[in-house]
């Protein structure tokens, strides 16, 4: 098996190259963040005197504390509601399969390909006439709707494989169905729901387009939207921009590294199903 061993060596080398290509940009970001604010350093160079204070300065300039609070508020508005109504609809389309459900389901599936840009201006107009422009609701309400195609697709894929005992039990009335949904179906669906929760959390956190168009105040935006504003303000001060970007990235990276197994499982499954 000489061939096999050589292949495994090539594989290892390739893996290491891939990791380096992934990580080096972050290293460059980090060492640049340590240079004196306002200077224009080169790619990767260790500063004569590292300016750790840049992180403090960026923390203050970006108002990190309030940014985190804002992003969490938006998450709270989006994720639980999306999970609840997405699971309910997934149950209806996967288990109950009422007459004519195919049309509604098809309309949702088509929405999987919808570029958010396509409804950007009407959303802006709609939020303005509802008086919600520049509030977090302007991000929360459309995001719930835009997440429905994937949430329903995902939850239906789960429910379609659950035996239809409960629904098939004759003469079940609405109240019983409601109870059996919450007491039996939802607990059984927990693995699918928690993966969906991770994906929705991440997509909300990283949502940029809706944040910059519908909300002017960076402190009412998502993390990604705030990062865009930070670049607008400090784009010319490279070390400070790098320090700020790293800070804004840190919560995501910490959460990811703790839950990386769940994240990558969810993202890989999510892509396959989407």
């Amino acid at each position, binding site marked *: 098996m000489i061939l096999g061993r050589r292949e495994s060596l090539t594989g290892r080398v390739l893996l290491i190259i*891939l990791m380096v290509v992934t990580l080096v940009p972050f290293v460059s970001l980090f060492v640049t963040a340590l240079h004196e604010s306002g200077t224009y350093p080169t790619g*990767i160079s260790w500063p004569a005197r590292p300016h750790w204070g840049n992180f403090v300065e960026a923390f203050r300039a970006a108002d990190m504390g309030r940014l985190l609070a804002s992003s969490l508020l938006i998450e709270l508005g989006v994720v639980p509601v999306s999970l609840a109504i997405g699971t309910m609809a997934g149950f209806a389309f996967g288990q*109950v399969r009422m007459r004519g459900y195919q049309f509604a389901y098809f309309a949702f599936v088509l929405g999987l390909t919808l*570029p958010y840009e396509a409804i950007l201006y009407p959303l802006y107009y709609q939020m303005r006439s509802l008086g919600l422009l520049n509030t977090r609701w302007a991000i929360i309400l459309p995001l719930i709707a835009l997440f429905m195609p994937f949430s329903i697709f995902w939850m239906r894929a789960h429910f379609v494989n659950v035996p239809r005992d409960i629904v098939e039990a004759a003469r079940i009335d609405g109240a019983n169905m409601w109870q059996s949904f919450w007491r039996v179906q939802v607990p059984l669906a927990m693995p699918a729901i928690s993966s969906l929760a991770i994906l929705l959390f991440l997509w909300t956190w990283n949502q940029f387009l809706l944040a910059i168009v519908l909300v002017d105040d960076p402190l009412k935006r998502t993390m990604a939207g705030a990062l865009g504003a930070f670049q607008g303000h400090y784009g010319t001060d490279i070390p400070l921009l790098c320090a700020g*970007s790293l800070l804004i990235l840190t919560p995501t990276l910490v959460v990811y590294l703790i839950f990386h197994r769940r994240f990558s499982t969810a993202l890989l499954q999510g892509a396959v199903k989407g």
Partner: protein
Amino acid sequence: MAQHLVGWLFAAPAIAFYVAFVIIPLLHTLQYSLYRWDGIGPSTYVGLQNYAHLFSNSTLLKSILNALKLIVFFSVIPVALGLLIASTIRRIAASRLAGFARVIIFIPQVIPLVAAGIIWSWLLASNGLVNQVLAAFGLKHVTRAWLGDFTFALPSVGVIGAWVLLGLCTLLLLAGMTKIDPEIYEAARLDGAGPVREFFAVTLPALRQEIGVCVTVTVIAALASFDIIYISTQGGPGNATMVPGYAIYYLAFFQREVGQASALAVGLMILVLLFILPIQWLTRERKR
């Protein structure tokens, strides 16, 4: 009978949200696309004129062509490289190094695209790491401010997308490969197949579905790209990196040509469907 009604009640909240914040705005986009409108004053019905402009206006046409070119970087390169890498590391997929690599390779998929844009804007700047590396290899004469260069700005933006999507594609394809029965590989080896023939005879056909997924996700990312462009080039220099996503935003909110922006939005939706539907049809397993 009651069951049907209850079913619809279960679906009702989702349908209500979807209709209110996706379907109705979508119908408005369709409606606006037939008018000339600045978003404030009165509007004039112009029929399909805004759609005709998509082909006659050089900026609009260029934005669509740029999106098509980005498919090469966002889709073709990550999928091809991902296939190459995944089939090379297939045999060591269970090793500790591979487990560690999996965590690292996924990071670009977790961070916001905006962050990737900021990081790479710095790497590709005239003082950035890319030029530093080129100079170290004696290629100082090719160094430049990559994102400000008329010829290289679009490929540079493409490189950012490829960096973001390569890890996802590699891991997806690897996950597909580990599902292939090892005995098929043994049989291929016994028949004297080398790595190359093995790849084309065994791996590639078995991965049809995973490849379909990678292509779908990455093509949508290419055609609907916005975040990276917004951060790194804003469509410039000139229109060198203008894409439909950014053009829609710019037309609607800065040029106040809502009708034209809406026609481009409809065009973009159709373009995405034109790519995605055949891909889905070709790669889905015939069982549903």
